[in-house]
């Protein structure tokens, strides 16, 4: 099924063009990004059901101009006249020194893209979607007496954007969906839970994937009630594709966002062409590098998405940039200029970030570890691009002793380390790369957005607590 384009954007395109032309009379460069994103979030848990509009819903515009020194922006969602938009832009004026940027010269391009999914949310209908989720909840309660709550979420969002400038007219429509299941179990005073995420450039067919994971998720939550605390220390570990993704994202991904190069906040800026990891480390980042929730055809500044190899066989090759950081640094923009919504500024942001696969087998990795852990699901992470510190909170680890999984679990696990040490310690990588993007990524503590991350099973050394 083809994802429909926005009737609103189609109907307003002519007036948006007039606005850009009017702005071009006043400014050396002018562009407009118009958005119309719609989605619904379904939540089911014990004793309650919710149908909510997605937090990613938006409809509005952001105008960007170059005023002879640098760039200014105005965000709005009422039908403003060109003169009102000019007034808003003029209202940004203020004192103090400014960064100087060159005027952006774009290659002409006019194109429209639309994606397809197997089942559009409208075709599935609210009743059937809710029925499938409530059935999953009821199945979960039927299989565990320890279950205190079962939280299920399904969300599908249609992203539709129009970018206009003097030389570009780009339109895209695509749909992503995500889901999660969180069984919460309780025994006595102890409460544990598991978070299993699902995501993709998919429609309601994502629910099929969730169906098959329910019982294992509940069983795992029950297992966590018996999990031990980990003894802090440095261990040989195997990262699941999900935890490898967390490493790719937090350890290295944020650190190569090139707006941080401009600020002098990224240690990676001094490592271009230098070794940052072992030969087994190759990292990709790009909207077209994979098909996941971080995929798009053009970014929020009208730059086409691509596939940037940031690290190749352990050597840092490139960063990822938004338009302004590329202009400041004199590098080509890589199509990573992304906004939380039309209301926010664009920054250099990750799209789909992942380790490339290798040839090592998981069984061999386990067999090679005398004492360590297989880390399987993450909760959260935090970047430290300046100092390359790593923080990741992992839901649980499976103990490995004498080359075998012992069946014992530790939970939760906090992993820390110095990024080049961790990447330098990668000694094996599995063949199959898996990505997921059921969470959100912030820049610091704000500017949340969708992207995906992943990799193969990776063996490395980490400090665990």
């Amino acid at each position, binding site marked *: 099924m083809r994802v429909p384009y926005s009737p609103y954007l189609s109907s307003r395109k002519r007036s948006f063009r007039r606005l850009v032309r009017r702005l071009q009379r006043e400014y050396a460069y002018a562009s407009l990004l118009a958005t119309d994103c719609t989605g619904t979030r379904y939540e089911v848990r014990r004793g309650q059901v919710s149908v909510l509009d997605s937090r990613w819903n938006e409809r509005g515009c952001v105008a960007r101009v170059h005023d002879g020194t640098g760039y200014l922006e105005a965000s709005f969602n*009422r039908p403003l006249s060109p003169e009102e938009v000019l007034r808003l832009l003029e209202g940004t004026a203020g004192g103090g020194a400014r960064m100087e940027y060159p005027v952006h010269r774009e290659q002409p391009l006019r194109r429209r893209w639309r994606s397809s999914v197997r089942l559009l949310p409208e075709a599935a209908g609210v009743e059937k979607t809710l029925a499938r989720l409530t059935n999953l909840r009821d199945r979960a309660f039927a299989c565990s007496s320890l279950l205190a709550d079962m939280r299920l979420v399904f969300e599908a969002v249609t992203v539709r954007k129009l970018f206009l400038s003097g030389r570009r007219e780009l339109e895209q429509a695509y749909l992503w969906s995500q889901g999660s299941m969180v069984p919460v179990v309780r025994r006595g005073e102890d409460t544990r839970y598991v978070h299993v995420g699902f995501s993709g450039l998919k429609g309601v067919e994502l629910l099929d994937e969730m169906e098959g994971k329910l019982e294992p998720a509940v069983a795992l939550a029950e297992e966590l009630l018996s999990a031990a605390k980990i003894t802090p220390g440095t261990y040989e570990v195997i990262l699941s594709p999900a935890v490898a993704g967390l490493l790719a994202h937090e350890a290295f991904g944020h650190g190569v966002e090139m707006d941080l190069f401009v600020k002098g906040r990224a240690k990676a800026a001094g490592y271009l062409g230098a070794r940052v990891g072992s030969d087994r480390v190759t990292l990709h980042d790009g909207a077209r590098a994979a098909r996941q929730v971080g995929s798009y055809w053009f970014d929020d500044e009208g730059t086409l998405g691509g596939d940037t190899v940031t690290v190749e066989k352990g050597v840092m090759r490139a960063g990822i940039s938004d338009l302004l950081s590329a202009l400041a640094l004199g590098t080509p923009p890589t199509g990573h200029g992304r906004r939380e919504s039309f209301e926010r500024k664009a920054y250099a942001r990750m799209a789909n970030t992942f380790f490339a696969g290798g040839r090592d087998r998981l069984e061999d990795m386990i067999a090679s570890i005398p004492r360590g852990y297989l880390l399987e699901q993450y909760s959260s992470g935090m970047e*430290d691009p300046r100092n390359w510190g790593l923080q990741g909170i992992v839901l649980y680890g499976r103990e490995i002793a004498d080359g075998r999984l012992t069946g014992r679990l530790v939970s939760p696990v906090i992993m820390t380390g110095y990024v080049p040490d961790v990447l330098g310690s990668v000694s094996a990588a599995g063949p199959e790369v898996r990505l997921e993007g059921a969470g959100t990524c912030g820049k610091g503590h704000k500017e949340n957005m969708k992207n995906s991350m992943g990799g193969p099973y990776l063996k490395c050394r980490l400090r665990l*607590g």
Partner: protein
Amino acid sequence: MLQAVLEGLRRAGVLNAWRIVEQQVESRELFLVGTRADMRRAKEVSRLQATVYRDFSRDGRACRGSATARLHPTQGRRELERALRAAAGAAGHVLNPAYPLVSPGGPAPQVPEAPGVPDLGGALDSLGAVLLETGGVQKGEKARLNSAELFLERGETRVRNSEGVDVRFGFFQGSGELFVEAEAPGGPVELFQPLAFARVRADELRVELDRQLELCERRARAVPTPALGSPPVLLTGVAVRELLSYFTYHSSAEAAYGRVARFRPGEGVQGRQVDGDPLTLSLEPYLEHSPSSVPWDVDGWPLAPTALIEQGRLLRWWGPLRWCHYQGCPPTGHLPNVRVGPGSRGLAELRRGGCLEVAVFSDFQCDALTGDFAGELRLGTWQDPGGGRQPVTGGSLSGRLPELAGGLELSAEILRLDGYEGPAGVRLASAAVSGG
């Protein structure tokens, strides 16, 4: 127009009740790199969200289903009606037990009006000048401002529902980020501080910047955190707010209804034995410094200060009308701020006997459901039992709050953050510390 469309749909039997939350927002934003403006932005937006309700019975049980729809000022009457009909259709499949909507009346909230900031651009310049002026000067010759972002947002919120509630109030919210850096033997180090403020005070921003510069200088002198085992820990700053949020979560009617709440009214919240300070906690609609302060919640419920925990004992559940109705307790509305009573001893006393004092984490998190907490140390101070103090960085700290709640020791000094006023420090009997 939206209200008229909703009323039309109600009369036609498409829906039974509705609520509209509307915000008019204007903002000015400044992005600094060093002492230069990287970008300036302006924003004027209307945010509009409608919730529609359908009442029906299923298996003899009264149900109220709801669905929300985000609407846009560029939607014409036909498009609005289509979106609301779709939401009403969805609400008909939401089988939740019936609950009432807020009715008009009740005492008006005693909350001061948000400060008027007539000239957002001028206010932004006054704050930006502090950063440009102070940031260029190296504090102690080592630390300086790297970059910053400032957002000033003002507007009005209006809440209406089909019961006749129609309340409106102005708001002002300042926010932003400071990144400071300092030279260290192994290369520059940085610290990051989110900002949230309820009034434009250049002097307060200067104090915060100076504090961050000083902390960053300390980080530059820090050594890797040694493997300390499980020492006593003194948490300070935003980690205190995060840690104590566990107690408000487990006191909520929503958590109780979902059968995940650990506490019950009349019972203790800190376990069977309380050796530390018993907790006293209230929820507040208004704290002078908190930009989250509001007089009414999103249902239009008038908010009032609410005592929640006294001397370690839960007094009542709290929450919006729906969850309190389900639990059969009086509603409090959704209160945005927490006030925690101070402890009897000062920070200096809490440091005695040795502890790891943590000033900055990369991202301290306390899982509200389980009480597990963890964070990577950006800056701490290891105070050995003999009184020696050493700044430390790196490594991690983790623990389980339910096992430590009875021994919490709260500082007499008060900390004020967005949504929080309470002890500036909390001492935990022990937490696992992995070395850096």
